[in-house]
């Protein structure tokens, strides 16, 4: 089993010809992952009140703009530059990618490294965008921007290095994270929770605060996320096989589809039996929960286990979001309840069900992997929590995290963006 090795010394270009099939799939996958961000903005945007719809969508788009640049300038160098003791990547030549020839191939894969840069960049973009779900309808845009720049640089990039770079210490220790359950979902989920607690509740939470302005947007967003997730997971085969568009990619695609369907089905059943109304928001939530949970396991488990992973994902996430109302913190759109909790379950499930390629999880009688998964997930969570506390605290102290009460009352669309979502 291989992973993303630190790039070869940039002077000599990797040998061997390019594989157009692998490249074609990685190009398509990168495009698919980008589409997840507008998809996310629809998913989130439909759930908030009308007066905040643009502002909520903008958090995702802003991430595309800001992290899109950050990744080229410094992000990739930090995450996938030559490893500094397994803790962080570094390679001056990768700043602004100036030292990366366009015909440089990636490691032992027959694809251009630039394509790998892009694929990974989309992950760096969507992760902070996910966080916005917990703090929507009240966080200041400027503070959000400052936060995600610092967070991506100081939390995400190191984490990606630990878990995905061939020299990364968690990777070398054997923690599995096929497509980002830990790096993307756990890290964003727990950070979202921390920020939600720092920010406090929305001024009129809960009653008034819960009035999804357009659930057709949320459903459509879930559909686009499902579609884009195929790139997210099946594209991540790049870490495990060459040619990339091979059997691991096919497996990851299959488990992704299966887990999403199973989770959506189970969430619907839960709601039906719980209060008799299978909601469209529940359908959308189930889809996302299943996709999140299968992410770390996608290329490691047999399709039949994806059914279990998806089903359990809806169970635990449903409980988590219900719990919220009890605990009374205000994670507006359940970024933690779905991504944090779902990501944790995914990490565990990987330890239980993994068998491919040549792995052995609990079901094949080895507890080690499960233990490593628990450890990895916890370490990542702890690191993200501490990082978010520090960065969030810094931003809070310097610029403040929250809009004024009046802006919140009038809605962020008109107050911050000088626009109204609809003129119907």
């Amino acid at each position: 089993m291989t992973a993303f090795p630190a790039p070869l010394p940039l002077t000599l270009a990797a040998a061997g010809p390019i594989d157009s099939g692998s490249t074609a799939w990685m190009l398509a996958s990168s495009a698919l992952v980008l589409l997840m961000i507008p998809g996310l903005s629809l998913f989130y945007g439909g759930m908030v009140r009308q007066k905040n719809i643009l502002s909520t969508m903008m958090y995702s788009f802003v991430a595309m703009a800001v992290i899109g640049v950050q990744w080229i300038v410094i992000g990739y160098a930090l995450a996938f530059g030559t490893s500094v003791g397994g803790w962080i990547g570094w390679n001056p030549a990768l700043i602004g990618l100036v030292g990366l020839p366009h015909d440089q191939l990636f490691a032992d894969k027959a694809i251009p490294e630039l394509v790998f840069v892009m694929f990974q960049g989309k992950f760096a973009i969507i992760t902070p965008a996910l966080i916005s779900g917990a703090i929507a309808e009240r966080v200041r845009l400027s503070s959000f921007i400052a936060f995600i720049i610092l967070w991506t640089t100081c939390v995400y990039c190191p984490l990606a290095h630990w878990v995905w770079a061939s020299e990364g210490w968690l990777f070398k220790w054997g923690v599995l994270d096929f497509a980002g359950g830990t790096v993307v979902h756990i890290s964003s989920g727990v950070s979202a929770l921390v920020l939600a607690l720092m920010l406090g509740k929305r001024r009129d939470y809960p009653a008034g605060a819960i009035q999804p302005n357009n659930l057709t947007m949320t459903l459509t967003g879930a559909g686009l996320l499902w579609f884009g997730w195929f790139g997210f997971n099946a594209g991540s085969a790049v870490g495990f096989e060459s040619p990339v568009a091979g059997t691991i990619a096919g497996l990851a695609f299959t488990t992704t589809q299966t887990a999403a369907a199973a989770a959506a089905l189970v969430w619907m059943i839960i709601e039906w039996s719980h209060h008799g109304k299978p909601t469209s928001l529940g359908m959308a939530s189930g889809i996302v929960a299943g996709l999140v949970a299968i992410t770390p396991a996608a290329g490691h488990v047999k399709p039949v286990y994806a059914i279990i992973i998806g089903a359990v994902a809806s169970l635990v996430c449903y409980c988590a979001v219900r719990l919220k109302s009890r605990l009374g913190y205000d994670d507006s759109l359940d970024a933690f309840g779905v991504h944090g909790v779902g990501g944790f379950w995914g990490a565990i499930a990987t330890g239980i069900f993994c068998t491919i390629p040549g792995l052995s999880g609990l079901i094949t009688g080895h507890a080690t992997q499960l233990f490593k998964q628990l450890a990895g997930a916890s370490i990542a969570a702890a690191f993200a929590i501490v990082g978010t506390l520090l960065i969030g605290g810094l931003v809070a102290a310097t610029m403040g995290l929250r809009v004024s009460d009046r802006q919140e009352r009038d809605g962020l669309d008109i107050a911050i963006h000088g626009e109204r979502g609809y003129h119907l």
Partner: protein
Amino acid sequence: MKLVIAVIRPEVLDAVQYQLQAVLDEGDNYRLTVFSVDGHGRALGEIEYFRGQPVRQRMVRRTQIEIAVNDEYVERTIDAILRGARTGDKGEVGDGKIFVVPLHECIRIRTGERGGDAV
């Protein structure tokens, strides 16, 4: 002349129009203006679910209709509305209200004619 204002359930608008058509001798040209409003009263708002959490809407969706009529038509207009808007024979909380407001003057924009004929 009076302005008859009624707040009714959206779903009974058809029935009310049907009844009005019968009493206002204008055939299908019976005149009416319709508003969609939010109401608050004894009726409880709809329950919607947001991720397993029941959310009771604080307002109910209602329809308000305005009909300007000459005095001799007021009663039959009211009766028509009652026939169309009452749920079952007993009626249910939330069926709404009828308000009758005196009308000082009425002008038909097209012709400028005033008073009773213009209604």
